[in-house]
């Protein structure tokens, strides 16, 4: 579904968490593109900076978080430099968000209808109350929940329905990009399957791009066109989802793949990755994965490798082994 036109260009994005006496660099100068109609995945273990990237793209970073450098370009404009008025138009209209926990993403004491209509009224005031309500009805039909239930409250819906409602709200203004931060993690696998199928179907129909974040690598490979693997605040590899596990370039990607069981084929022994990621307040000079990497060479501990495109693999990777 994806075209080659770039929708969002992320360059050298850097996000810090500022403490009283320390700075933790949670995202350290990462580069990637999200193309039109593409589903781009961000994978990596907890604390690697995936959600921090997502929040920075939506301009939701708040203290102690601080976007300290880089650019996020949308049609040549830098999102990070938007003023208040431009930011208001950018929010939800161009980039919307589906949060991890649908249980908490809906306000428990405001009717669902109002939570859909308020965003429409804020951004498209000339539609009027009637028009906004009509749009809300269409959205409920789109996600397959009877519009008669529009005025109910979040506790009256099941977990799966609540996540569908969140997706409906995300679609309310037909945005170009939807950021989905672990949209199905809190749900059981059957509901998860339904939701993903519905997202794929809606994406094919409406043509928005998706930034997809999850721990579930299997799900990500199925859903995404390209996947970026993050480690300790850096992108270590960006590759098409078809080849990221069959032909991984970076040792971390390989190790990550080895720690997921294949659903088909012979049974293999799963390997974990020994050790833990470095502390963000005390990062090593060289490659951040070197301490846990079975292939580490002396150069790895001295010099940090840059993310480089390797045409023969259709993949970008940051590793000295490939040079």
């Amino acid at each position: 579904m994806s075209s080659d036109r770039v929708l969002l260009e992320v360059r050298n994005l850097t996000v810090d968490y500022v403490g009283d006496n320390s700075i933790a660099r949670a995202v350290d100068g990462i580069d990637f593109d999200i193309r039109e109609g593409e589903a781009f995945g961000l994978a990596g273990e907890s604390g690697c900076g995936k959600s921090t990237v997502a929040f920075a793209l939506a301009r939701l970073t708040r203290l102690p978080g601080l976007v300290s450098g880089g650019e996020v370009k949308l049609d040549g404009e830098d999102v990070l430099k938007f003023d208040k008025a431009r930011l208001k138009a950018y929010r939800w209209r161009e980039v919307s968000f589906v949060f991890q926990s649908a249980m908490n993403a809906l306000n428990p004491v405001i009717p669902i209808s109002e939570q859909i209509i308020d965003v429409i009224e804020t951004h498209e005031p000339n539609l009027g109350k009637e028009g906004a309500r009509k749009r809300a009805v269409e959205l409920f039909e789109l996600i397959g929940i009877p519009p008669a239930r529009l005025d109910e409250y979040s506790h009256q819906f099941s977990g799966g329905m609540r996540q569908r409602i969140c997706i409906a709200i995300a679609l309310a203004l037909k945005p170009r990009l939807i950021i989905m931060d672990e949209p199905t993690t809190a749900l059981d696998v059957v509901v998860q399957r339904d939701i993903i199928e519905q997202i794929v179907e809606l994406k094919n129909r409406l043509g928005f791009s998706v930034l997809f974040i999850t721990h579930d690598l299997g799900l990500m490979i199925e859903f995404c066109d390209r996947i970026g693997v993050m480690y300790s605040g850096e992108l270590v590899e960006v590759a098409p989802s078809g080849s990221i596990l069959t032909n991984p370039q970076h040792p971390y990607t390989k190790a990550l793949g080895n720690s997921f069981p294949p659903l088909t084929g012979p049974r293999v022994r799963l390997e974990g990755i020994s050790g833990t990621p470095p502390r963000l307040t005390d990062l090593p000079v060289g490659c951040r994965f070197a301490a846990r990497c079975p292939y580490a060479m002396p150069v790895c501990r001295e010099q940090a490798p840059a993310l480089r495109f390797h045409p023969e693999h259709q993949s970008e990777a940051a590793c000295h082994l490939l040079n």
Partner: protein
Amino acid sequence: MIFLARRIAFYFAAFFLAITFNFLIPRLMPGSPSDRIIASFQGRLNESQIAAIRKAYGFEGNLWEQYVTYVQSVFRLDFGISTVQFPEPTASLLFYGAQWTLVIVGLAIFFAFFIGSFMGIHAAWNRGGFFDSFFTPINVMMNAFTPAIVALVLFYAFSLQLKWFPLGRAHDPNLMPNWFDLKFVGSVLYHATLPVLSIFLVSFGGWHLGMRNVMINLLNEDFVVMARAKGLSENRIKYRYVARNAILPQITALALSIGFALGGALVTEQVFNYPGLGKFTFTAIGARDYSFIQGQLLLLTCSVLVANLLSDIANVILDPRLRGR
């Protein structure tokens, strides 16, 4: 509705339990009020006089008969005769005091709740900013003062020294009580200013803190982050998405403090010589006016129960999660 019906049934049972205790406690204590009066005559009473006094104070017959008489008199709003302000019926004293107590405590709670909650909303929204760093510690400190100190300072400064405010009473004694007469209402407000201010000053910090803490917890909720991502206006997020939820526990606390309002502001009313329930209770305790104390306890019980019921109703109206149960 079933929820409310169950609550009402519960409060009715609680009410009966309360009047039963109210009946039993004085009778379990050594020396009933009638014994005290009889003893004060030092044996100069004959049999029939003693029986008459016992009857007047409801100590005639066995415990069960006394109880039945007591419950009947409660429903007739007959709380006996006051010994302090003899022969004024206790009920009329109670209602007279309750009216003035409601004026000052009601006004104080009203201002403290709204001003305190608004300050809390503002402090939480700009957490760590100037307003928060300045007013939050000050309001905590104000909340730590006892009403006695604040009342005495205000009374000394503004009533005794500057003479800006009166030395006592609830209104100008030359005016006839008439709530439709603006001059009378003005006089009431003038007399109530310092008592209200002294209760307000020691209580609004509590509302400020309560609101601020609940708000801050809510600010990290996903639905607030999502409201920001939606690009909604600052005020809409602040009031509709955060304060709307944070007000729920405040409402419960508000109902409780309204309930206890009829306990009277004992110290404040004493200092300002204000004819409220607190001042009457103070006098009644000193003079062992049992019928007044009993009546006051019953009034307090009822007002706490009614306030709780109102808080339940308000919560059902404001919190959709409680509806339909």
